[in-house]
């Protein structure tokens, strides 16, 4: 029975139906409303979908589709695996968390997330601090917010996510291109996105007393 719902994210109230295949192949992608909010969902049999590469890609691709298709819209993304028992439990959470969802939608209104990494060769002799300052400064000028560096490898000189106005993607791309021209000889410049603004929303909802 497909009575469970897999949720991808929350948008301003809008009726959406996409033929795309979601997590566990669920289709169509559709919306469940509560007042001024809509959750983007697909039907699913289980409450615990497997974290396969295919499911991970499906979750992300549905979000990107909602973020971009038909002119695009703002979406606040769910973490992977947020399944609900029914439309009623989903609406109950939309109701209880509506302030936080509304606030998050306002925070990232009209925005997309873009990622930039600068990767050095093994053992390269570089003034990393100076590069971070220059590149970070140039990208800060064409973005609204940024995350701290996530330097999980010694080869990473810079690794940040940026929150950028939808209309500002081209200017951001110009800045990345200029950085590649200036640093491309010594560093690999990785530019990825657009993403739903995963790095710029943080909401946790729980049921007390359980």
């Amino acid at each position, binding site marked *: 029975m497909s009575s469970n719902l897999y949720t991808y*994210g*929350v948008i301003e109230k809008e009726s959406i139906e996409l033929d795309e295949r979601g997590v566990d192949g669920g289709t169509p992608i559709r919306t469940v409303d509560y007042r001024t909010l809509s959750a983007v969902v697909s039907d699913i049999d289980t*409450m615990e979908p497997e*974290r396969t*590469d295919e499911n*991970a*890609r499906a*979750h*992300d691709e549905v979000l990107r589709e909602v973020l971009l298709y038909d002119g695009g819209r703002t979406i606040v*993304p*769910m*973490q*992977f695996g*947020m*399944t*609900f*028992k029914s439309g009623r*439990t989903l609406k*109950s*959470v939309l109701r*209880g*968390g509506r*302030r*936080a969802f509304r*606030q*998050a939608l*306002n*925070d990232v209104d009209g925005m997309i997330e*873009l990622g930039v990494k600068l990767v050095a060769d093994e053992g390269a002799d570089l003034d990393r601090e100076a590069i971070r300052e220059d590149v970070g400064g140039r990208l*800060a000028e064409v973005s*609204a*917010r*940024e*995350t*701290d560096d996530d330097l999980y490898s010694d080869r990473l000189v810079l690794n940040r996510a940026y929150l950028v106005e939808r209309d500002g993607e*081209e200017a951001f*791309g110009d800045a*990345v*291109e*200029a950085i*590649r*021209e200036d640093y491309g000889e010594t560093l690999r410049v990785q*530019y*990825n*996105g*657009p*993403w*739903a603004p*995963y*790095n*710029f*929303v*943080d*909401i*946790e*909802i*729980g*049921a*007390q007393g*359980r």
Partner: protein
Amino acid sequence: MASERPGSSSLADVLDRILDKGIVIDIWARISVVGIEILTVEARVVAASVDTFLHYAAEISKIEQATQSGDFEDLQDLEIKQSPAMRAQSQ
């Protein structure tokens, strides 16, 4: 010079985001219909300035108190503004 388009995303980039970030809702809230009085809502602004965070923290705690006392509906006028620091950053 053409504006550069982002490249395709690697699986590692996807996993880094979808497994660690985004809205988290615990299993109890997802399987049972619960009243708002027993839902806990924590919301933080990520990577904003400290000022903005403190401002949000104060507003969010108002929401949480109201949630716990059950008069959530009375907070229709609650407004969370961007701090000057955040606006300056977004210029």
